[in-house]
């Protein structure tokens, strides 16, 4: 009798189970043409353009994105940038960006803030990637220790007056031989399973002048 009861129970369960299944199907329909979307800005570091930028009759490289992509507003970390750093318009794939300009010679630098899951390849690979971007040769693992500085920075004061320290790795590199000369000052830290990169690239004199402000900026970084 128990077998019969179990069978009835199971069959009812299966009936309910299969009655709830909905199959995904390919569909087709015809719609009137909609107004073309405003094109996006494809301003990317290094002047790279998107594959479909400029394609089509309505391309306008100066237009802003309709929807900011990875925006600082919903990032897991927040910070306070110096007022002299001009926020760059929202560009997809990057959490935030700032343009730094030197008044006397109009030289510029750009700070980009990005986040990637995991440790994204480790210190040596990241440093060599940045070296490659400004035309420097890669370094070996033996010289890594001299290139990489470790910083422990107290974060901003919390609600109860406490300051939570955050560990950063800091690298500086300059290629005076390139035309124009280029320098990179980058710091990165781990937060919530992601590696956050704060990379300042531009004219060496400007990077050098802005280094204290950059270090102060790192102190303002805190979880949202």
């Amino acid at each position, binding site marked *: 009798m128990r077998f019969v009861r179990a069978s009835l129970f199971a069959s009812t369960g299966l009936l309910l189970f299969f009655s709830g299944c909905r199959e995904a199907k390919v569909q087709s*329909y015809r719609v009137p*043409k909609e107004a073309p979307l405003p094109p996006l800005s494809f301003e990317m570091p290094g002047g790279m353009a998107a594959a479909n930028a400029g394609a089509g009759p309505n391309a306008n490289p100066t237009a802003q994105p309709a929807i900011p992509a990875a925006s600082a507003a*919903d990032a897991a970390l927040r910070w306070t940038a110096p007022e002299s750093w001009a926020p760059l318009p929202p560009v997809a*794939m990057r959490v935030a960006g700032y343009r730094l300009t030197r008044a006397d010679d109009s030289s510029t630098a750009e700070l980009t803030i990005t986040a990637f899951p995991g440790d994204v390849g480790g210190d040596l690979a990241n440093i060599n990637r940045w070296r490659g971007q400004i035309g420097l040769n890669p370094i070996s693992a033996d010289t890594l220790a001299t290139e990489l500085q470790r910083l422990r920075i107290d974060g901003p004061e919390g609600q109860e007056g406490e300051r939570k320290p955050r560990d950063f790795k800091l690298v500086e590199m300059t290629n005076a031989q390139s035309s124009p000369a280029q320098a990179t000052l980058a710091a990165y830290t781990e937060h919530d399973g992601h590696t956050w990169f704060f990379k300042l690239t531009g004219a060496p004199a400007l990077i050098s002048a802005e280094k204290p402000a950059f270090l102060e900026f790192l102190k303002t970084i805190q979880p949202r």
Partner: protein
Amino acid sequence: MRENWDEFIKFFTSLKLTVVLLALSIVLIFWATLAQVELGIWGVQEQFFKTFFVLKKIPGTEIPVPVFPGGYFIGGLLLLNLIFSHLYRFRFTWGKSGIQLTHSGLILLLLGELFTGLWQQDYQLRLDEGVEKNYSESFRDQELAIIDTTHPDYDDVVILPDRLLAKRGGKSGRAEVQHPKLPFRLVVRDYYPNAIPQTRDQVPPNAPSVPPTTMGFGRDFTVIPLPLSYRQDQSNLSAAVVELIGPDGSLGTWLLSAHPFVRPQPFEYAGRSFELSLRFARNYKPFSLKLLELRHDVYPGTEIPKNFSSRVRLSEAGAQADREVLIYMNNPLRYGGLTFYQYQMDSASGYSVLQVVKNPSWMLPYVSCILMMAGLLIQFGISLFGFTKKRSLTAATATATAAVATSASAQPPPAKTAKPRRTR
């Protein structure tokens, strides 16, 4: 056979089953409440309640196994239990009519929840000021659209839902689609339910990214797969690598992403113009809405919101509908079986987002609550009426007894004392 049927009825009318199901539902709700910390409200609804079984993967594998009955299973059996009990245990009497009505309301409430789970559709409609739209977009579901843009007046669209993209099968290990409207075959090479696009030169070495595709966006960009997010305020943005294959061979591979940054990727084939895009699933409507004005009012001297409202023009050619509607908090627009609620707004950027809800069973909870309320009122009314009737009867009897006793005491005692009438 008769014996089996009796056993079946006995099982489904059992009060033990009710108690077990209620206990299971308590455990399910408690577990889901704890899981909500990690999964968020959508994840919990999908994995615990809108399912027949709570599935967990065997550690180290991708094989899901049922570990606990889900909301549909427990709710479905409770519903059957209640219906069978009504049919076989309860007998209709006027004295119990309130209980019957209350239980009918409960049955309707359970059915309403089931229908809502099965049929309700939630979409969002983002309207920029001055822009007219005739479709809303899903909050979570995405779709691959192959759009034939050749004709100057209309587009022919072929849609593959994301569930189909995620499905495994076919020679490539993923879905393969040959649609009569398309002169080529589409093969899904890879699918990532959540991934962020990134320029190739910005991708750190050893990061898990997708190799270059031969066409479009994927030549210079890649995507980095991310774990699925169950947070209510975050969307998973899917990505896919697809290959189009014509009669003469491959037309190339494309990287598609649902990220709003990635626009439809155009290409030409066989004298026709096409676009490929991965986007939030669209739901087209026979009417359109145009945002005329949005207002975000605050109380004077403060930043405290006082009012969010969107003034829209509703137009439907066939139905001759052309009117202005003001949508604000607690004042949604109901039209065409849909309800448009004011959902989000960014007055600085000049856009408003409406939540579009389609729920054919939206009236059922109201009706069931009215039924339950009426049932309880009737049942309590019957009890109260019976009680007051008895009480007045008792009082009348007591008065009569007292009168008899008074008159009896005024007269000389009879030879034999009359026995008073016993009252209940």
